[in-house]
């Protein structure tokens, strides 16, 4: 198929960016979206032009590196996948596709489609852990039974890949789903209860400091999340936050 691409180009963090139009031809429907981008980049190199920078690594939907805003949706039109799992069969011959970076104050553009997600790192550093040394001298792994129900819910929350699609999809650029996923994972496990109070307070405080907006329950994050992390986690985090704030 033949496509028209309108892609955000920006040389560096301080430069002004703009949409630039490219044409690609003979794109196979079996290609992944990023393979289509590879084809475009190869053609740019052949023409002595600077290829388009975009983040990507594992190309199997788990590292969380890829981050394209495609036709107005983080990770494109399909559901429950990352950009690298999006295939060209989702598009039609002759389509025009708009490709932009994540847009949020807390995610400044580094170059072209690459953004800086260090804000997420700092939120995790504020409390996204259980304070246990890695000596191996803990108790036996089966010493505390954990109900399968809670263990599964914890796993569902822990499936977050930290890509930032929740922020990019939110009209408030809120990072609530991301933070809630981590808070929930630990809040659901006995190991995480000890520090639950400090964790939720510190992570939320850092989230606010980074300039993410607040949650107004539009639910766009849940729809666009490549791992389908549930909004229930935000409700759980709000409960944890309230509990931690009044006791």
């Amino acid at each position, binding site marked *: 198929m033949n496509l028209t691409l309108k892609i955000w180009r920006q*040389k560096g963090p301080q430069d002004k960016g703009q949409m630039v139009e490219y044409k690609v031809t003979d794109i196979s429907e079996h290609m992944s979206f990023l393979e289509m981008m590879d084809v475009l980049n190869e053609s740019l190199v052949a023409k002595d032009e*600077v290829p388009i920078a975009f983040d990507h*690594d594992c190309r199997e939907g788990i590292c969380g590196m890829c981050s394209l805003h495609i036709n107005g949706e983080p990770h494109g039109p399909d559901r429950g996948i990352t950009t690298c*799992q999006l295939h060209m069969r989702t598009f039609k011959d002759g389509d025009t596709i708009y490709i932009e970076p994540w847009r949020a104050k807390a995610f400044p553009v580094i170059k072209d489609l690459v953004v800086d*997600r260090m804000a997420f790192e700092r939120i995790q550093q504020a409390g996204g852990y259980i304070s*246990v040394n*890695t000596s191996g001298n803990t108790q036996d792994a089966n010493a505390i039974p*954990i109900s*399968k129900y809670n263990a599964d819910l914890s796993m569902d929350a822990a499936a977050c890949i930290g890509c930032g699609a929740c922020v990019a999809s939110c009209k408030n650029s809120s990072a609530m789903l991301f933070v809630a996923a981590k808070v929930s994972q630990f809040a659901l496990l006995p190991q995480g209860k000890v520090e639950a109070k400090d964790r939720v307070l510190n992570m939320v405080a850092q989230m606010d400091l980074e300039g993410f907006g607040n949650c107004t329950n539009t639910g766009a994050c849940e729809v666009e999340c490549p791992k389908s992390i549930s909004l229930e986690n935000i409700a759980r985090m709000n409960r944890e936050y309230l509990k931690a704030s009044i006791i």
Partner: protein
Amino acid sequence: MTTLNSRIPEGPIKDKWTLYKDHIDLVNPANKRNIDIIVVGTGLAGGSAAATLAELGYNVKAFAYQDSPRRAHSIAAQGGINAAKNYMGDGDSNYRLFYDTVKGGDYRSREANVHRLAEVSGAIIDQCVAQGVPFARDYGGLLDNRSFGGVLVSRTFYAKGQTGQQLLLGCYSAMNRQIARGKIEMFNRHEMLDVVKIDGKARGIIARDLITGEIERHSAHAVVIATGGYGNVYFLSTNAMGSNATAAWKIHKKGAYFANPCFTQIHPTCIPRSGDYQSKLTLMSESLRNDGRIWVPKKIEDAKAIQQGNLKPTAIVEEDRDYFLERRYPAYGNLVPRDVASRAAKERCDAGHGVNATGEAVYLDFAAAINRYGSTKAKISGNQNPSKEEIITLGEAVIEEKYGNLFQMYEKIIDENPYKTPMMIYPATHYTMGGVWVDYNLMTTVPGLYCIGEANFSDHGANRLGASALMQGLADGYFVLPYTIGDYLADDIRTGKIPTDSPEFDEVEKSVKDQLDFFINNEGTHSVDYFHKKLGLVMWNKVGMARNEKGLKEAIKEIQDIRKDFWKNVKVPGDLNEMNPELEKAGRVADFLELGELFAKDALEREESCGGHFREEHITEDGEAKRDDKNFAYVAAWEYTGKPSEAILHKEELEFKDIELKTRSYK
């Protein structure tokens, strides 16, 4: 020829590690504060090492080329992690895990290292649970286990199909705790481009800031390389796009021996390739072989019809299917080790029984498992006379719970529903058992330079068993290196900070800058990927699943030619002082072009078939791998002398005192 000193402690194998730990030198807490350690790579091995070393009190600088440690490719490991907990009561023990690993590795690994790995395996699970890793549990609330290839017990712990992700997030959280305390200084989007040696010891690295392009000097008292394997030498592999061998190769060129490069794992269950534009291959976890049955059509005309799209697999009756693994290996069936399964699939496809348009695929079929689970589920829920449809619905739900994310991943790529039509799979490069040579302390042949995880060679011999990579990465990082590195650093407590304004740093920085300048200024004609793809094709066709003398000799010549062409005609657009992914790739491919040649040379030199290394000249009458213990029971450790073709071979003879060398049989 020098003999390598592997520094294996004395004593019975069961007690070696304990005795060793009792007698090593320790660094007191106050002195640890004056010692710096660089850790390059933040996957399971590097991440766990960085966190643990920081907890101990050392000052750690950690480097990752991605924008966060959480994105290292350990995250993509799906199936699980082995540990000899014997929670299932099925006869597992440290010894059995040790035995299975040595046997699975086709008797080409070091006994003492593997036993230590088995000994610490249980602590990994304890540790991870304490960190909040949400492993799968059964209804009683205890941890669940499943079975993997090459073993007869269930010792694999898992977190859905995302075990690597959860373990990595566990180590990432431990790192974050130390980053917050200032004990780890984290350098995201940085790539190590060379190591700096002072008085023969590793004392620092040169790194490039991938955002600004700035070249930086970092010093330390010891350097730990944890940068994973070199599978991307094949261009197409299940590795991440950025996975590279540059750190490992650069230290090789500075004196670290490189061991057994030809031991590479081709994983049997990957999604087949579809076209020339393909950028990478996707793994379907080995855990699927617990429930999936592998087959091809018995009749060649059926295979042909399928290849042409005129026949559906579901239309082929049971009698016309060849479950070739169950047929050839009745004892282990679909759960034979990876090397065996891969070769068997290739053999069937080469004979014309392959099942997609390219003829390079076999089926992995869940229909039997869906029926079995569905019937059980119906009984449990009190439905005595379930209809066929009810059974299938119930069975599919069980399969979805176990492998849902894998099935979804498959459906997205192939656009077929694997619950209804069997999956198509084909072998692909997945893991490299070979790597930087290390002694028992995980130190390379350069003092103060350590190598852990997939990047080293030590524990998996010629073939790695499923769910053992995660185990080794975390064992090295959490429980082995933190002890062994102290023994070395105990002599460094009076050294003080290492300055970076020395001639040694000047010299290495200059060579790094010269190479980058060359790439940017070279007026070439072809992109980096053009050369990488060419290299990959040679590697896959001549140094892939089956190798022979003629092919290997041709491969060496062809790789040399591609390398020559690369240095003349490579074209790198953009500038030095900016984010420049093409420039990053150029350096990595330059190293692959040398490593590939050593790889082929090693494969040529090893005149036997063992594990992932299959030489067509060395097979038994029934087509199985024929090992030669008399002449090849050694580790081939290569010393760099200026060119891969002139590398000098050093042999570490492998002694098997606790396990009898046997022909590996899974029949």
